[in-house]
């Protein structure tokens, strides 16, 4: 247990001070005081992480020192050592935040175990703090990609209200980075050391969303086998991000409004009022004003949420940012996959001028796929169009699923020479399979589809994969990568 931590030993007994110095000097930076009234000053000046505190001290009693540490919220782990066996003193010490309590004459081994545990706790706290700092760093305004005037205006607006408790409503198409802006609001504010939590209101069933938001008591409903703390409570003093707020039922909208007004709520099935100080950031890709007009969204809630509105422009309206995103994602995924892929000029220009209906998320997927599929260090325009072609097929299919009702004969008549989407998909599948030496799992991963979907498509397009000697060998080592034979 070697550490850089500093220990202050406060004991009026010279023997104990000597003993603890001799015992701990190989592991800690040890400092000693013999009076209670000098402890606080020394702690403030040096910033020791650990205090070994005798309770009977001249000048100021150990309990009074502990009280001051507790009241001043000083960050120091205190181990109380005392000659008294009095259980009440032990309880009081622990209530005042002491980490442990050792009765003299204590075992030095036991003290070392206590200190080892404290060091582990401090290491963990440091790690969490560093990770939190790193996490927050990524969401600083200066580190968010957005040099376009539209984004700069957003950052400037948010900076003005960042340390207030104002609600923020982010409106933007899917894939524009609404959650990143919500996190930026949190990590740039004075709430950053407290939790950030998010809920996607479109993915959680309406009957569960109340429990997610407000928590529930044990037995509140069937299946509530234990108490659950809701996101509102967890994010108290921090920020709660409610994505796709338009999906919230009218009933839940009323509850949310009440919490915003009263800053207090009860867990489901509970009767204790819980006070919270949670900043609310919401987002929607739908026009909430229109929903208000249609009586599908409460007007009073809309005005509560819309104190600071932020309109995130679609990617095509901030083309200045596209080259920055390209470089960012190239760096990210080259690092992740251990590649060194770049784009040639034509490919870059094409991507910059593309319409990006799926916004930043789509651009990210495309770059990721280009790096995965690329066999060379430089991606050409042809590679880009090929991947985008496949992207469009996927998007069109998705759109068709959403908008068009099923038809009896899905195969339309097409003019000669014009390929159908299915034909393009089949060609692309064959090309990708060739590229990955007919390995179904790798090809499926590269195309971002499951193996099951891959097999269904192979069956649908009657694509037969014949085993080669190399594949047999691979199949043997890879734990039976199944080859596809239609009809099997």
């Amino acid at each position: 247990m070697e550490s850089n931590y500093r220990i202050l030993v406060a004991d009026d007994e010279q023997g104990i001070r000597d003993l603890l110095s001799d015992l701990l000097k190989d592991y800690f930076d040890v400092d000693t005081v013999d009076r209670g009234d000098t402890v606080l000053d020394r702690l403030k000046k040096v910033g020791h992480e650990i205090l070994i505190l005798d309770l009977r001290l001249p000048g100021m009693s150990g309990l009074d020192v502990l009280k001051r540490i507790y009241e001043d919220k000083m960050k120091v782990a205190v181990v109380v050592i005392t000659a008294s066996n009095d259980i009440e003193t032990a309880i009081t010490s622990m209530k005042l935040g002491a980490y442990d309590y050792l009765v003299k004459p204590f075992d030095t081994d036991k003290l070392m175990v206590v200190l080892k545990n404290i060091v582990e706790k401090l290491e963990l706290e440091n790690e969490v703090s560093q990770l939190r700092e790193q996490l927050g760093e990524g969401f600083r305004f200066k580190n968010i990609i957005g040099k376009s005037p539209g984004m700069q205006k957003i950052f400037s607006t948010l900076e003005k209200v960042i340390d207030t408790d104002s609600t923020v409503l982010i409106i933007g198409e899917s894939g524009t980075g609404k959650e990143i802006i919500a996190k930026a609001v949190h990590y740039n504010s004075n709430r950053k050391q407290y939790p950030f939590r998010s809920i996607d209101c479109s993915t959680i069933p309406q009957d569960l969303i109340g429990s997610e938001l407000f928590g529930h008591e044990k037995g509140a409903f069937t299946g509530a086998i234990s108490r659950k703390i809701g996101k509102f409570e967890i994010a108290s003093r921090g920020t709660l991000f409610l994505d796709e707020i338009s999906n919230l039922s009218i009933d839940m909208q009323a509850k949310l409004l009440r919490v915003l007004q009263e800053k207090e709520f009860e867990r489901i099935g509970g009767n204790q009022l819980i006070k919270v100080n949670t900043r609310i950031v919401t987002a929607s890709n739908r026009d909430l004003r229109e929903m208000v007009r249609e009586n599908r969204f409460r007007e009073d809630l809309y005005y509560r949420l819309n104190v600071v509105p932020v309109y995130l422009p679609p990617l095509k309206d901030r083309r200045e940012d596209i080259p920055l995103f390209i470089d960012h994602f190239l760096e990210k995924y080259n690092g992740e996959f251990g590649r060194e892929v770049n784009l040639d000029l034509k490919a870059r220009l094409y991507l910059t001028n593309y319409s990006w209906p799926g916004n930043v998320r789509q651009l990210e997927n495309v770059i990721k796929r280009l790096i995965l599929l690329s066999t060379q260090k430089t991606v050409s325009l042809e590679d880009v169009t090929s991947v985008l072609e496949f992207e469009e097929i996927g998007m069109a299919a998705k759109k068709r699923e959403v908008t068009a009702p099923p038809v009896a004969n899905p195969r339309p008549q097409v003019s000669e020479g014009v390929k159908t989407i299915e034909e393009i998909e089949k060609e692309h599948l064959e090309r990708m399979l060739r590229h990955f030496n007919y390995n179904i799992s790798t090809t499926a991963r590269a195309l971002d589809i499951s193996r099951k979907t891959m097999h269904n498509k192979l069956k649908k397009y009657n694509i037969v994969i014949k085993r080669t000697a190399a594949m047999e060998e691979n199949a043997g080592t890879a734990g039976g990568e199944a080859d596809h034979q239609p009809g099997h």
Partner: protein
Amino acid sequence: MKSDEAARVIESLIRNLSHELKNPLTTIKGYAQLLALKSGDPASVEKSHRMIQDQVDRIDRMLQDLYAAFAPRKPVSAGFDAAETLRELLSSFPEGVRAAAGHIPDTCPAAGDRGALVEIVNLIVRGFDWGGLSGAGCTLGMSEPGGRAVIDICFEGVDMPEISEPEFYLPFALKKYYLKGTEPYEAFFIALACGWDITPLKTDGDPRKGFRIWL
């Protein structure tokens, strides 16, 4: 003394004694464990031996101090001038003892053991933790309430609690203020052997606290 009061005094005595013994015992135990851990380091071994020896000697001294109060005494009964004795004592205190003279009459005839009185005052005044309680001072004065000569030793500038009678005969009860913690206890039993009394100084809201020696 009633039995419940006696039980309370004994309980306090054992608690105080146990508390005082646990500190040197912790040091002894700790250095014994350190000795095993650092047996290859001659300097550490030497220090561990020395510390263990020192703490054993300290426990021995502590027990001797406790017995000292009951050491057989043959108080000399003779006439002496208590006022003059007090003035001599005031001029004999070493540097660091912040003792001042209060009202001391020119003469104050008393009967008893003058040496015992010197010992009592020295225990109470010199035994005080003058180094640790740097803001403290004391005043020594004399008066004759009800025709009996008394010496008042009054402490000020220190957050001393109202002293109660059992604290005189309970060793270590005033440890926070006394170097060894047995000084007022020893003084109390010497006074008892001489036919004198020591009581808490009636302060009537006065922040000063102290002792009154009745001759």
